[in-house]
């Protein structure tokens, strides 16, 4: 059985002051190999918590995660992670960062050299491979992070707002790149984002989460990611369904935020 299965995940943070936060409640999900899922939701609805559980950094209070039939108990090379920023190793040059996974696995340069150089080509950083990562721009650093993750050849790629810190133009280019890499490599991807547009453009499936407790609110199956492969993303945005879905989701999240505000005000 291939694919990623989340079974009734619940996560409760017990705080030292005796209270507790229900970050996730009964989240279940089936993700086939090669699917790209984008996750949206108001701030604090448990997206990062969900991703951390899948990555194996957190053990859920209830439920379990299965990848290709076996349970996830901790971080492993089969599940790669791309962080928002600041997760590169600045004491290594670009190439050493990208080849980190294979090197830690004890592979020789003749086994990974060609693959790593190919990835550097794909993300357009061939000339920069000997540079220190802190000499690169934010967009270039995220491309290094993507390449580093891919070089390790994981089954699942988990991304927590990977493009969140980039400017609009760089972000658009990176979105195309993510789509292209997804199609080329056929990886299963979970992408957390705050941008509804990004979620629509990149997600084959889209999950909207609701807060307090964090749970799945609604799920969509979208055609835009397939349309967007090899095409100008701006053309995709002109698709008649695109604007309508965007408005629907925006309204949904807007209502959730209103509700949170209302609850907070009532509590005061």
């Amino acid at each position: 059985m291939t694919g990623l299965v989340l079974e009734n995940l619940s996560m409760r943070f017990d705080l030292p002051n005796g209270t507790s936060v229900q970050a996730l409640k009964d989240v279940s999900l089936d993700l086939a190999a090669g699917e790209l899922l984008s996750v949206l939701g108001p701030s604090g609805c448990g997206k990062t918590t969900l991703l951390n559980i899948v990555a194996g950094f957190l053990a859920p209070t209830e439920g379990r995660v299965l990848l290709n039939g076996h349970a996830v108990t901790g971080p492993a090379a089969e599940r790669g992670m791309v962080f928002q920023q600041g997760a590169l190793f600045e004491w290594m040059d670009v190439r050493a960062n990208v080849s980190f996974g294979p090197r830690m696995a004890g592979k020789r340069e003749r086994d990974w050299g060609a693959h790593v150089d190919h990835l550097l080509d794909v993300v357009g950083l061939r000339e920069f491979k000997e540079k220190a990562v802190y000499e690169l721009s934010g967009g270039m650093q995220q491309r290094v992070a993507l390449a580093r993750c891919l070089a390790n050849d994981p089954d699942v790629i988990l991304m927590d707002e990977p493009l969140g810190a980039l400017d609009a133009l760089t972000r658009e280019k990176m979105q195309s790149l993510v789509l292209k890499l997804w199609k080329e490599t056929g990886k299963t991807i979970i992408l957390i984002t705050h941008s509804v547009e990004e979620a629509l453009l990149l997600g084959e499936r889209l999950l909207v989460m609701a807060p307090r407790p964090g749970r799945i609110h609604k799920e969509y199956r979208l055609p835009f990611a397939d349309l967007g492969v090899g095409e100008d993303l701006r053309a995709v945005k002109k698709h008649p369904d695109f604007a309508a879905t965007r408005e629907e989701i925006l309204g949904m999240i807007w209502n959730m935020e209103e509700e949170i505000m209302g609850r907070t005000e009532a509590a005061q």
Partner: protein
Amino acid sequence: MIVFLIYIAIFVASFLLVKLLVHRSTRDFTARKTVTFGDESAVRPNRVAGVVSVLTIFLLWGAFTGSKWVPGVLHAPGPFIGDATFTYTAEAEGVAPDDATVTIRVFPVGEEVTAPEVAPGEGWAKNDADTVGAWRSGLVRVDRNDDHGRDQGHRVVAVNGTPIAPGGEVMTAFGRVGMSPKGTLNFEPSKGLQMEPIWLPPPEAVLARLREIAREGYRDSTLWEHLGWSLFRVIAGFFFGALIGIPLGYAMGLSDWFRGWFDPIVEFMRPVPPLALIPLVIIWAGIGEPGKIILLFLAALWIMAIAARAGVSGVKISKVHAAYSLGASKWQIMRHVIIPNSLPDIFTGARVAMGVCWGTVVAAELVAAEKGAGMMIMVASKFQLTDIVIMGIILIGVIGFGIDILMRLAEKALVPWKGRG
């Protein structure tokens, strides 16, 4: 006091002068900043001020010690040198008061001089001659060559025509003439404003002493041996301190048990100045090399442990998570993430530790040592060899500064990613 006022005057005058002469010499971006007061990054050391500051110190030093390096016009008034004269009026039983002149040759200390030849003069009070060293004072027994001595009630009643009584004094152009309670005159030539070499030698004397000691050594060891021993102790102590302290800090940053076990010890030892440990270390290990190295080891140990611990806690959790997700083992994370990530902190700690060790070794050598920079100035001070003391202080400062610069260069070369995470 005067020195301080002159210093302030030079500070203000050079500031105004430079402001007048140099208009906005900075041409870079900072020069375009309109808000500079309160913007710390816009405040950079003014090079001219730095040069003037150092020159001023040497100028004041030279001016108040009569240095040959400072042109004579800039010298502060020196002590009186030459033949000083004053007259005294003496009374004795049965004769009229009589005057006589005293000539005193004031000479720089260290020279051999003889009293000037003077004619006895007329009357029963005879002219006198004597010698006194500059900055010193001397009794002048004017009655000894007079025809009527103390046994006949000889008594000085005036100096330069000004009445004087036992315990009193008269200021003359050449200095102060005082009278002891028993009626003996004493002469203290005017000192001027310069410092006597035994308090503060001129810069050239310090340099000459440096040359001499560099050539001939001091107390059975060459200068290089003295400094080398101090440096050796610092490096040995620091080496062992880092050798134990860094792994200890890592352990404290990585394990609950180590953190809990050593936290109280480290937090307790951190505020104890290493100097306070000197007596205990002397009791336990004696004044030999082991004692000194143990002391410096203790001085460096806590600093390095705390630096390494800070280096581990400073690692961003996302880097560790990323490494685990890329399949790294615990040991690989230690080797490829935690250690490199902590190096900037460790370098900062090492700079502090080297500074503290250098200060501590000098202090420890002041207390007891056979060789070393601190021992050199301690022994010299017992013999009032101020030039060696000053030379030692300057060398200690220069070496401490040199160590810090070397550490900074090493840091730049070895951890270029510092502060860029």
